[in-house]
């Protein structure tokens, strides 16, 4: 592929290696590709931040001269993709969901509904926990909500660890099951956060 500005071969890079011009988006790149990182769950958050800043400094539309409309347009597209990639990979849970998507199961888009594969006992247990939380919410008992949240958060972490191990072993089914549970825990924690918010 040739650079739109100097015709040099760009090898699908975001920046032309010849003249440094920001290139149009190339479809099919994963968020890991965008940030130049290996597609694994274990990554150093500091390195991710540094990489993001380094790329922002090169790709952001504010870095393109005010007079070059085409370069600016590409810069907006590239930076939007970079921001999305960074936001997705920065959070360990979202990163796991994204890795699962790369393995073919998209739970990021899927906003709910019943999923086969979750044991009935788990669903019943979550239902009970929810009811318990609703009662606490009615009493405006923030401390009790936080205590329940702490327990669920521990299970969320454990579920995430299970999911990450399954993702590495390419056991997509086990990873899906674990992440579905993680999602239930997350929703529970959002509810706890909302109760805390009201008490701020």
């Amino acid at each position, binding site marked *: 592929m040739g650079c739109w500005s100097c015709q040099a071969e760009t090898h699908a890079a975001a920046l032309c290696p010849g003249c440094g011009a920001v290139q149009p988006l190339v479809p099919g790149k994963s968020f890991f590709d965008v940030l130049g990182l290996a597609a694994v769950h274990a990554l150093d958050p500091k390195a991710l*931040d*540094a990489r993001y*800043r*380094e790329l*922002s*400094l090169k790709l*952001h*539309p*504010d*870095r393109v*001269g*005010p*007079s070059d409309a085409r370069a600016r347009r590409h810069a*907006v*597209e590239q*930076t*939007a*993709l970079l*921001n*999305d990639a*960074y*936001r997705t990979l920065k959070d360990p849970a979202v990163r796991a969901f994204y890795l699962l998507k790369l393995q073919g199961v998209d739970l990021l*888009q899927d*906003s709910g509904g019943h999923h086969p594969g979750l044991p009935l006992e788990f669903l019943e247990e979550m239902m009970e926990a929810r009811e318990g939380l609703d009662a606490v919410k009615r009493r405006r008992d923030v401390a009790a909500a936080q205590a329940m949240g702490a327990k669920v958060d521990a299970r969320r972490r454990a579920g995430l660890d299970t999911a990450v191990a399954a993702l590495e072993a390419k056991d997509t089914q086990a990873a899906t099951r674990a992440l579905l549970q993680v999602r239930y825990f997350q929703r529970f924690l959002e509810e706890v956060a909302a109760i805390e*918010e009201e008490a*701020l």
Partner: protein
Amino acid sequence: MALLQIHDPLKPKGHAVGIDLGTTHSLVASVFHGKPRCLEADVDHALLLPSVVHYAKDGSVVVGNRARALAAQHPTDTIVSVKRFMGKSLGDAETRKLGAYRFSGEAGLVRFEVAGGQPVTPIEVSAEILRALKRRAEAHFNGKVEQAVITVPAYFDDAQRQATRDAGRVAGLEVLRLLNEPTAAALAYGLDKGSQGTFAVYDLGGGTFDISILELVDGVFQVKSTGGDSALGGDDFDRALAGKVMETWGLLSPDAAGVQALLFEARRVKEALTDEPSVTFSALGRTLQVTRAEFESCIAPYVARTGTVCRRALRDAQVEAGALDGVILVGGSTRVPAVRAFVQELFGREPLGDIDPDQVVALGAAVQADLLTNDARQDEVLLLDVIPLSLGLETMGGVVEKVIPRNSTLPISRAQVFTTFQEGQNAMDIHVLQGERELVEDCRSLARFRLSGIPQLPPGAARVEVTFAVDADGILKVKAREQSTGVEQAVTVKPSHGLTDEEIETMLLDAIEHAEDDISARQLREQRVEATRVLHDARKQLVDNGDLLTAAEAEALKAACSVVEEAARGKDHLAIQAALKDLDAAGRPFAERIMDRSMGRALAGHRVEEF
């Protein structure tokens, strides 16, 4: 100073400035030799231009301190704190409480009825302030100023941002960027100090409160989170104090002028209490001693409200208060000692205040304007701003599905796939909303459009991809695309601040005229009056003395009248003047004959001897 200037055809734009368009006052700043500096903004050489616009009976407009002086006598013709009305409609619960103004007719759109002409919108009032700043800056540079970075509170929604942008256009400014105020403040500090770390910016202005958590590392300024309250500020302190005084004096409902006088005095007392423990409140012929402690108890609930917003912002940024490297104070209201003490308590450290909290936002805006227009500064700090409120779509049951969460870094583009839910459904209504709440009625509606031509598939089979793209200014574009057919619809979200594009266009034209010269506006008015008078006379004479003219002469005269009439409808005073001159020439023989006839009539019946 360079003697030769190299002409750059791509940059005929003159100087770029940073403008802090504030609730109580506004400032303009620019960068000189790498340093930002505020320019004189009012005619009395002050750097702060009170954001007050007075409309006089003769149609003239006064901005700034002179306007503020007129507020007490002409409360409804003098608009103060117009920023609070930006992007709001009369339907918004708070709007009518904001001042003793006369709002014109129809619901929805805010229009102030003022002396000297048509009702004006908040956009036009703000444009008067911007125009005044532009003129002052042009006087300073002795050259054109056509580009500006204008600051807005981080918590401004899309409608408020769009209204601000439109005000800039109406004032004849190309708005390079709408910059969040706290970000601007941090920019002013960051560049001065070259510091690294995580900072909180606590910005309590006249009418708005903002908090931002920012991180500055390796030349990248990253906004981690923002929060705020677009209806909380120093004006509330004034109102609280005035309210307490009214209560003490047993005043139930003073008239508009009385309220203005009380608020004006409350403001003075508030400022004086910064340095003195006790001040005499004196208004409406009465006095009352107010201690600092009394004042502080009046404002305590407002100060406490800022704490809630700060805690939420810290949580969003996942930063502990103790982990901050500094707290920056912005806004005149942070001069109030109780506010400083509260901030110190909240963040556990003494806040930074070595840049004037009134100027710091304008200085940061000037820095950003310089960065955006000056190719030579590419290697300097980069600002990564965030979107302040979540954006989403209405789905089944009036529930909002968030597509872009708040505090996402800009620019950003996100796509989400939706499907149909009815048998035979061949169109989909896309309803774009802004806000954090789950239900449609609790969020702000930004736009609605319909994607039609979806193939009639069983429910759940069609796949409509909706893409939200927000540019670096926080302005949103939405695109919906059915994936099997490629049917597509897109809108740039034009938030409903109530003005159509044509209205903006008309204001723009008016603005250009204004910008040309106020004298020419006055001349236009004068020529129009003259045209009306002359036309009236000429037509009267045609009726009374038309028989003195041949048919051809009468036609020529009527034609000349039409030309004048036409010109008077236009905006070019020189054209009216020229048409009047032609009419005068065409009518001269007629006038002579009329004169002769009236002389004849006057003479008839008199004897020559009498003369």
